[in-house]
């Protein structure tokens, strides 16, 4: 096992990793910019090194400074957290080149998944479902109709040579396919001088569902079920659940089998998450994140596993030590991301936290680097706290989230607590009836009951 780990990050995730190290009896080195000298992750670490001025590019993205800090403190491994250098293959290579262990996947896999096209191609080869469609061009309406019936309406008819929406038509039912096919084809010929068209499933109301996996260096791969991250604003996740209100155990198991099989063939190592769009019972792979994710705690609550501890164990060369059948899913968990933003305008609100009091009690977990008197610097991400609740059922989890949000006191800066409080009261959310468009509409409607 490692003796000293350098945590190349800040904020709540640096604290999260600090806690896992402390529990494993591993010494820690915090790195920080001049803006974070008083930060919680610095206060709690065994050692700290100032690596640069506030701008991330000069500090938390400053590879030379971080590697020098590791050297002068004698750290033997580096945990990158998420963001910053977490998915930088070059950094991972340099870490290894300096004889240190990078706590994460191999640079090759980071690079592969960083290229979204290559990632999709690889996953397709390995049998992971992408968005359904015709393999190549469809010659006539009859075959178009057959494909549409196979993959299910609505379907998108796209110009093979196309782009920019031209030569692109939606058919929502059988009676629309002929017309749509003819128009798409005509537009394609006119626009590109090539009337070849192909079909793709049209996802008009998908959910964002992702699958958490762990793999050791010896080919064992286990999944920890799904997270539903459909509640997003401007592609920023705001609230996540495990499991998804839209998925049953059978579907989860099938997807899990496919994914763990694929990653086994790939020889993937450490933690990873595959993101999918999910609609009408079908999954379409979007991308794979080769790191720990912000929302990992909901999986930890439901599976009773410490994902960061496991990342460290795996990087140190340990075997997983458990199989898929050992993983149990207990109850339901919800994470509320609380950011230093105005809950109405989403303007960032850095500044001094004059009072901080986290909720407590049964089934409530808070991951936050805030404390009374801390000044939230303006230079970094606005995430300041994660409230995670766990309960036997989703309904009880919502009740618990509601009371915990009511107890949560962050005074001095505006936060999105009030927005989460409104979401909890929303019938369509309570019913689990939402897609990736839900939150945008809810916010547009001013968090009113027309949110669904």
């Amino acid at each position, binding site marked *: 096992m490692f003796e000293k780990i350098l945590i190349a990050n800040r904020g709540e995730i640096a604290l999260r990793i600090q806690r896992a190290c402390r529990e494993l009896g591993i010494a820690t080195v915090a790195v920080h910019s001049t803006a974070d000298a008083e930060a919680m992750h610095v206060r709690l670490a065994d050692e700290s090194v100032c690596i640069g001025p506030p701008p991330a590019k000069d500090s938390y993205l400053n590879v030379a400074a971080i590697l020098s800090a590791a050297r002068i403190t004698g750290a033997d491994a580096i945990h990158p957290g998420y963001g910053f250098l977490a998915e930088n293959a070059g950094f991972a290579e340099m870490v290894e080149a300096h004889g240190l262990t990078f706590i994460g996947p191999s640079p090759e896999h980071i690079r592969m998944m960083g290229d979204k096209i290559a990632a999709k191609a690889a996953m397709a080869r390995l049998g992971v479902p992408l968005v359904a469609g015709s393999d190549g061009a469809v010659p006539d309406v009859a075959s178009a109709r057959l494909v549409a019936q196979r993959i299910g309406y609505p379907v998108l008819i796209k110009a093979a040579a196309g782009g920019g929406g031209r030569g692109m038509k939606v058919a929502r039912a059988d009676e629309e396919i002929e017309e749509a096919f003819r128009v798409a084809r005509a537009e394609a010929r006119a626009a590109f001088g090539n009337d070849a068209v192909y079909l793709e499933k049209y996802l008009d109301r998908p959910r964002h569902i992702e699958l958490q996996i762990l793999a050791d260096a010896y080919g064992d791969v286990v999944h920890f079920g799904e997270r539903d991250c459909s509640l997003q604003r401007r592609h920023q996740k705001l609230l996540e659940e495990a499991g998804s209100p839209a998925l049953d155990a059978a579907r989860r198991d099938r997807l899990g089998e496919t994914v763990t099989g694929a990653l086994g063939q790939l020889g993937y190592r450490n933690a990873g998450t595959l993101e999918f769009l999910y609609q009408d019972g079908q999954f379409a792979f979007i991308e794979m994140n080769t790191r720990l994710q912000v929302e990992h705690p909901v999986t930890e609550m439901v599976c009773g596993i410490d994902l960061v501890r496991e990342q460290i164990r795996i990087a140190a060369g340990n075997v997983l030590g458990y199989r898929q059948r050992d993983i149990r899913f207990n109850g339901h968990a919800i994470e509320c991301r609380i950011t230093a933003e105005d809950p109405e305008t989403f303007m960032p609100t850095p500044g*001094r936290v*004059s*009072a901080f*009091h986290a909720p407590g009690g049964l089934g409530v977990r808070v991951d936050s680097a805030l404390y009374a008197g801390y*000044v939230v610097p303006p230079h970094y991400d606005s995430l300041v706290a994660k409230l995670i609740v766990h309960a036997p059922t989703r309904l009880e989890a919502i009740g618990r989230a509601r009371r915990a*949000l*009511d*107890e*949560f*006191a*962050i*005074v*001095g800066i505006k936060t999105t*607590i*009030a927005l989460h*409080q409104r979401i909890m009261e929303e019938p369509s959310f309570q019913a689990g009836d939402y897609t990736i468009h839900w939150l945008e509409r809810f916010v547009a409607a001013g968090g009113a009951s027309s949110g669904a």
Partner: protein
Amino acid sequence: MTRIPMDPDAIRALAGILTETGLTEIEIAEKDSRIRVVRAPGVPPPSAEAPTRAAPHPPATLAPPPSELDALASHPGAVLSPMVGVVYLSPEPGAPPFVTVGQTVSAGQTVLLIEAMKTFNHIKAPKAGTVTRILVANSSPVEYGEPLMLIEA
């Protein structure tokens, strides 16, 4: 030695204005008097907020708003409730009240009843004086220590 006359409320008021305006220093001079308050950048006003900021409904209370309650409770002529119960201003329904505002009372005279556990407790005037204010309505609930009326000499 000369004692410098100072006005804490004025200082508090200025501190409030600092906070409100985001200024860091205010100085006021009038003839020979001068007052100056400074708050260094980065030092915030202490937050009076209690850790219930996020609570949807502030804790209700059966009494008037704390500020007024405290003020009245500490009033020298205040008669405070010795128990939790329900107040009755007259001996029985329809009967005239024990006392009315402006009436003079003697020490030990019953001024109202408080019913608790089905027993009616006579609340007596702690001292002689004039009833200047009755703070509770007939058959309204009261908590321990809640001011019931004012009797001033």
